[in-house]
Every structure is written in C-alpha cells, then in structure tokens.
C-alpha cells in the first residue's frame, strides 16, 4: 500500500513535468521544423531580400515577402486601434459600473462571441462590412473600392478580437481589490478618479498583457481576414485597397502550387516569419509588463 502510494506520487509528478515539457517544446519543434524546411530559400536569397523585397514572382524565383508582411501589419494594427478602446471601456464598465443583472446577461454573450468559428465572422464580413465599405465609405472618400480591402480585414479582425481581449481585461480588472477603490473614494476621489488612478493603474501590467496577446492572436488570424481582405499582392497605404496578409498566403497556396521550384520552402519561410513576428510581439509586451512591475 505504502509502496503503491509512493509510485503513484512519483508517476503523477513525472506526468506533470512531461506535460509541461511537451508544451514548452512545441514552439521550439515547430520553429526548428519550419527553419529546416525553409533552408533552400535561405541558400538562394539573403534575409534582407526575402523580408524587404517587394517582387513576388515565384515562377522567376523572386520571393519578396514585404507586401505580405506589410498587409499583415496594416490589418493587425488597424484591428488593434479599433478594438482596444472598445474593449477597454466595455471591460471597465462591466467590472466597475454595471449591475449584477447586466453582468449576468453579458458574460454568456461574450463567451458565445469568443467561441464563434472565424469563418462566421468572415461570412458576416462579406455580407455586411465589404458592401458597407464599397457603397458607403469608399464613395465618401471619393475612391472606387470593391470593399475587399485592408479596412474590411481590420474591421472583421477587430470584431473577432473584441471578445477575446474583453474577456482577458475583465479578469484583469476583477483582480483589483475593492478595498483599494474604497480607500481612494474615502480620500474624496470621485468614482471615475478612483477607477482611473487605482483600478487602471493597478491593472496596467494585465492590460498590457491582454493587448499583447490580442495583438498576437490578431496577427495570426487567417480565415476571416482572407475572406474579406482581397488577397491582392501590393504594398499600399490606402486602407480601402486590397492587401494580402501572410497567413492568407500560406492558407491559399499550400498544396496548390508546389510544382513551382522553391515555392514549398517559400511558404515554410512565410510560416517561420509569422512565428517570429508573433514571438517578437510577445517579447515586446513581456518587456513592457516587466518595466511596469519594476516601476
């Protein structure tokens, strides 16, 4: 009996360590695999040419990824700008001002939105956002856009990310002890002053973390964006024109055009780029969180 308990104790400890090791090894294995698969393209092109080159002509052996990287960044930043203020104030309202009844009604709705498959957001984008941009926004600015554009991608991505970021922010704001807010109120601060100086300030690291994770998720989002962004290879500053983000490049072409020499390696390189950029975003936000803690 005693020996059996010791064996179970050790086995459970071993299983937990193994599970953790598998999780930690996953991105390393994925990164290594993508790197090795993309080696052929490294051998023929410099990293500078690959990352900042704008000529995408696979049949001629030119693989410039800049249009895809620029589109990804543009769509992601646009979605970030649109979703962050909405999530921030909605989360503050729900955790600091809303009645219990409203909270009970809202939380399941947010969970449902977070659980919707991205293809549904894509379809909604095609049915609503794309025509709206084509028929309302574009004429307003005197432009002729089909609606399939970076702006459509940004809006759809923002809507998709809202429940995800909102859920994280709600959890962050809920961790601030009510006693801290009461302390501020008892000093004569108004409710908004207490929320601003105490709740937001105390939650700052968590807010940064939520935005970082939201940004990383937005950057890698594929299907919904691919359905509305136009998938046209170009570098543009006009959000009403089409773009072609990195995930869409991979999803549209993998398994389709592999007869073209180096195309396989190029797509692996695109995936590696995606992984690296998401890693960089995470590292930047980790650094911001660290800076917040030590200050």
């Amino acid at each position, binding site marked *: 009996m005693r020996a059996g308990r010791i064996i179970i104790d050790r086995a459970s400890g071993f299983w937990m360590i193994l599970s953790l090791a598998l999780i930690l090894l996953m991105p390393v294995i994925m990164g290594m695999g993508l790197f090795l698969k993309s080696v052929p393209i490294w051998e023929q092109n410099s990293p500078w040419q690959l990352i900042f080159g704008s000529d995408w002509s696979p049949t001629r052996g030119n693989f410039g990824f800049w249009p895809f990287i620029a589109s990804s960044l543009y769509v992601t930043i646009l979605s970030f700008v649109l979703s962050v203020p909405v999530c921030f104030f909605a989360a503050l309202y729900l955790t600091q001002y809303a009645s219990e009844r409203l909270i009970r009604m809202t939380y399941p709705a947010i969970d449902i939105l977070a659980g919707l498959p991205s293809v549904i957001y894509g379809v909604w984008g095609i049915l609503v956002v794309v025509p709206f941009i084509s028929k309302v926004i574009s004429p307003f600015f005197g432009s002729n856009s089909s609606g399939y554009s970076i702006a459509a991608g940004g809006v759809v991505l923002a809507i998709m990310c809202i429940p995800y970021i909102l859920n994280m922010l709600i959890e962050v704001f809920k961790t601030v002890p009510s006693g*801290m807010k009461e302390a501020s*109120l*008892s*000093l*004569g601060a108004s409710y908004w002053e207490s929320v601003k100086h105490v709740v937001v300030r*105390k939650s700052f690291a968590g807010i940064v973390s939520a935005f970082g994770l939201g940004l990383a998720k937005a950057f890698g989002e594929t299907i919904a964006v691919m359905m509305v962004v136009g998938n046209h290879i170009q570098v543009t500053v006009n959000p009403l024109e089409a773009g072609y983000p990195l995930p869409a490049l991979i999803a549209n072409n993998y398994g389709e055009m592999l007869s073209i020499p180096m195309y396989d390696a190029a797509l692996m390189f695109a995936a590696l780029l995606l992984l690296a950029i998401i890693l960089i975003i995470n590292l930047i936000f980790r650094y911001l969180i660290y800076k917040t803690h030590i200050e």
Partner: protein
Amino acid sequence: MNSSVITDTNLSEINLGIRGNGHPPIVSVKNLNVYAGNHHILKNINLDIPKNKITVLLGPSGCGKTTLLKCMNRLTDLYHELKVTGDVWIDGDNILKSNDNIAALRQKMGLLSQRPYPLPMSIFKNVAYGIKLKGIYDKKLIQYNVEKYLREVGLWEEVKDRLHQPAVGLSIGQQQRLCLARGLAVRPQIILADEPTSALDPISSKIIENLFKELKKNYTIILVTHVLRQAVRLADHVVFMSYGEIIEEGAPADLFKNPATEKLREYIYDGN
C-alpha cells in the same frame, strides 16, 4: 441635506445623545437599518459617537460592525444590493439624505481598513493623492504636508530616503501607517478604523494603538474590533453588537466589569 435644514427638534435629538462624559456627539445614528435582499444586516441602530474619543464597535465577526462603519462614509453606496434607511448625522448633515458632494463628505472621515491598501503608486504619491484631491497643487505645500503626516504616524524616518519607490515595497505594518498618514492628510474629523491591526504583527499593532491614543486629541476615532483586549486598551466608549443589533454600550470600565446582558457576559468570558 445641508445644515440650514436642521430644525430645533433635530438638534435637540442630537443633543439628547450627549454622553455622560460631557462631550457632544460628533456622529449621531438614528433608526438605521440595512438590508441585503431579505437579510436584515443592521437592525434599528441608534448610536451617538462622542467627539475626540475612541469609540470601539465590538462584537463577533459578521455582527454588522463594518457595515455600520461603511454607512458613516456612504461606502454602502458601492454595494447595489444594500438598502439603507434611517439617518446618520455628522457635523450637522444627515449624510444618508445628502446627495451633494459625497466626496467632500467622505473627506471628513479617514478610513483605515482591515488590511492596508496602499494605492498603486509611490509612497510620496500615496500621501499626496488625498492632498491634491483637497485642491492643493502647490508642490512645496504638498511636499510639506507629505512630510508632516508621515512624521505624524512615525514613518518619516523610515521612508524619507525612498519616498519615490512603490508603496507596496513597505512592510505590512508600515503600509498600514502609510494608509493612516494618507487618511490624515485630507484632514478628516473622524477616523474610521475597521480592524486595522488584524493583519499586523504585535509590534506593528502596538504602534498603531499608540498612534490612536495620540490622535484622539485631535480626531474622533471609531474603531471596529472583535478583540476584547484591544477594546479594553483603547476604548473610551464601547458599543457591543451582536447579529446586527446594539446589545449594550457605555464606558468600558462599567461595561466590562458589569455586563448587563448574557450575550456580552458570554463574549467577555469567551474572549478571556
């Protein structure tokens, strides 16, 4: 309701509460009831708090002491589920009926909670926060006041070289004294202390208790505790509560030596 609305009847009601020790009440609670749904938390509380004395609200956990304290600075407003009826007169204002400038009302009462809640900012800014809320923005004046109140709670010497470091870096006893300094900096008339030593070690508790003895010269202190010995050490006036009701009140010497009710007698014997 502002002071102009006070009638002679009201004033005489307040004055009825003058304690035997000759101090007029600074706080007068009349027919106060607090409900949370069907739960009757405070049951018809009538209470007068003498000025510049330490009044101890004593009683077992969950008897409504903290709720009573929170009624006095309207922090009950934060809890949507609470329904508060009755009157709480402070400085001539019935604060439960007053709808204007709750912030100014709260500044009359410094709050010290069970565990210290330093605001997420530096030691200096913690004290300066309340000063700025009083409308003082002159840097030298703020600096002067921060030092003054940190000295008043005996914290200045310990923190003067790290004023701009985060307040959470202080020990828990220091944090509680910082919270007291922060509360004093808004120049309250009353200090509401909700079991302020419950999270502290004996040495830090003693420092806080000694501070209270000093502070009562200039402030009225309402101290919530369930520690009988602390009540004996500090109280000028004791209010014993149980299940949302005031069971007995009076001078500690009378109350603890000759409890009139079985509930207090039991509490004293269990406490010893």
